[in-house]
């Protein structure tokens, strides 16, 4: 086994949260974001040892839509590149492993999503079990509302006021973020390269991701054992965190995550506004990692937790722990 290396997030950029791509193609939407992240890290296009992206063809309605975005990264002469068909947080995980194993010293990670091209309520039903769930077209809000009712019944959440208009009872329209178009980019670097690129790198102390069964009836919707296990494996419970960026695409799900992650009043949760402030689908999780890192860069945090999710009702969860101090140094 390769000896462990210190790997840090050294740069983070994301698009404006104004809602739509304003006529831009995905490469056009991504370009200013990539340039900003590379500028922060002092890298030229194509210079990173590894490039990894996250997105979903179903959102754009085009097969291999991610290949077009390679135009924006300076992919000639050929670069070492990979893609995950999910949130960019999982692209960051792949890039982190690549650097840990000594196959790269620097990595550019990005994510893009144009949910306004289609109707996410329809599109996201296609990620469900094709035998028993997808033929019923249960949209993400319906599934989140089933989870919210289970939380109310278990006493973890208050019954909403009867007079309010509901998107899907018990949840109101305001319990969900509006899906927006967006892009984000992060640069990872190892050891001294990271120190050279960033005054206060956000060292990745651990990342893990865990998944639960896809049948909602097989799961306890009032809990998130996958989040808890990922957090344990990422080392989140070894010492208190001061900041947590949570990817909860519905208010009720934040309740589940706070309990699973044992976050108390001392932790600043979602100082960025979280997923509720803006939900660029397939980008939102990577933004949580980026926002947590940026807080360390700015000196506002010493130890932060970042969480990303995928699938219905928090099915698949990733937890990362970032610190101002790398593994090898004493705090």
């Amino acid at each position: 086994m390769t000896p462990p290396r210190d790997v840090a997030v050294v740069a983070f950029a994301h698009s404006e949260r104004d809602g739509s791509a304003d006529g831009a193609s995905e490469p056009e939407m991504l370009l200013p974001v990539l340039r900003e992240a590379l500028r922060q890290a002092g890298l030229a296009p194509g210079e990173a040892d590894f490039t990894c992206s996250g997105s979903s063809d179903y959102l754009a309605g085009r097969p291999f839509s991610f290949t077009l975005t390679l135009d924006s990264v300076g992919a000639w002469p050929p670069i070492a590149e990979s893609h995950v068909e999910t949130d960019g947080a999982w692209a960051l995980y792949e890039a982190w492993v690549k650097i840990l194993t000594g196959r790269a010293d620097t990595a550019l990670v990005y994510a893009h999503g144009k949910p306004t091209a289609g109707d996410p309520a329809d599109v996201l039903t296609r990620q469900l079990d094709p035998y028993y769930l997808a033929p019923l077209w249960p949209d993400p809000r319906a599934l989140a509302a089933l989870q919210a009712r289970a939380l109310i019944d278990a006493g973890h959440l208050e019954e909403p006021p009867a007079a309010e208009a509901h998107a899907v009872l018990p949840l109101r329209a305001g319990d969900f973020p509006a899906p927006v178009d967006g892009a984000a980019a992060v640069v990872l670097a190892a050891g001294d390269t990271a120190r050279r690129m960033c005054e206060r790198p956000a060292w990745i102390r651990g990342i893990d991701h865990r998944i639960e069964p896809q049948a909602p009836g097989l799961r306890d919707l009032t809990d998130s054992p996958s989040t808890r296990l990922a957090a344990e494996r990422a080392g989140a419970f070894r010492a208190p965190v001061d900041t947590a960026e949570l990817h909860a695409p519905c208010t009720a799900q934040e309740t589940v995550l706070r309990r699973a992650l044992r976050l108390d009043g001392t932790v600043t949760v979602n100082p960025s506004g979280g997923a509720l402030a803006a939900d660029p689908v397939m980008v939102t999780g990577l933004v949580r990692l980026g926002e947590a890192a940026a807080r360390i860069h700015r000196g506002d945090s010493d130890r932060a937790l970042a969480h990303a999710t995928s699938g219905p009702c928090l099915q698949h969860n990733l937890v990362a722990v970032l610190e101002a101090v790398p593994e090898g140094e004493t705090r």
Partner: protein
Amino acid sequence: MPEILTAPLTVSFPFTRSLGPVQSAFLTGLRERTVLGVRTTDGRVLVPPVEYDPVTAGEIRDLAEVAPTGTVTTWAWNPAPRDKQPLRTPFAWVLVRLDGADTALLHVLDAPGPHAVRTGMRVRIRWAPERTGAITDIGCFEPYEDEPGEDETAAGKAGAGEDRAREAGHRPAAPHDGVFDAPVTGIVTPARLDYTYTPGRAMSRHLAALAEHRITGERCPSCRKVHVPPRGVCPTCGVPTTEQTEVGPHGTVTTFCVVNIKAKGAGIDVPYVYAHIALDGADLALHARIGGIPYDEVRMGMRVAPVWTGDARHPDHFRPTGEPDAAYDTYKELL
């Protein structure tokens, strides 16, 4: 800046899946108005059933029949049903634990309003009139009053499936061989997704010019190459391209192939030639059909020009101009 183009885009496909033995028995059972679960290694009955044990990942094959009645474990009121969802009128999404089962099934409940739905309520399957061996063979659930004398409240309690079913006055899951005549071996789920496609800013500029029979590219400020069609970014340098420049209309065939297989629905007779064409002033070859010359006379270096027909946004094909062929050195970088 010209207007950003948009167009409706529909992705529609029959999602076709084969079934494992457990799924086949379950879906065939629904066709025959029989609900089957599968027993796990630790003795629980899963409905809907799966092929592999969720805990041990081992193959599980012991089927058991459960009742068409059950208990709502959680629910959500959907005031605005969407097109493809099972009911046209407002309904409740429900997870239902059928009597004899230990896990809950996702489906819909036909009820007059949210006031008529609660966790722990008793429901039963309303079968679809026409059944094919699919989850939609369950048309929906409907409220159901247990026979007098049964203790309705007991149904809401959590516990082992058999205990709860006994409390509610129902038989526990009974072993079933899963054998039916004409078992279903696959499902086809029609899927249709509607999008509004936009080609982006650079491509919109390019297409607007094409509509005026002008072919435009965009120059990279860094390497000075002209990309046609433009994508708003230089793929080599990773920088935005903004300087528009008109290219062609004449160009050079850099390489080509002879197409001998007719594409479905194409109105062009085979054989024909499809070629890479470097338009004068462009640093990237585009591709198009060559017409106005027998297919076996097309050659590398041949000079061509676009032919526009009707009010089409694109040239229909390129034809020979009659100019002398270009020297190989002039286009070797554009192959």
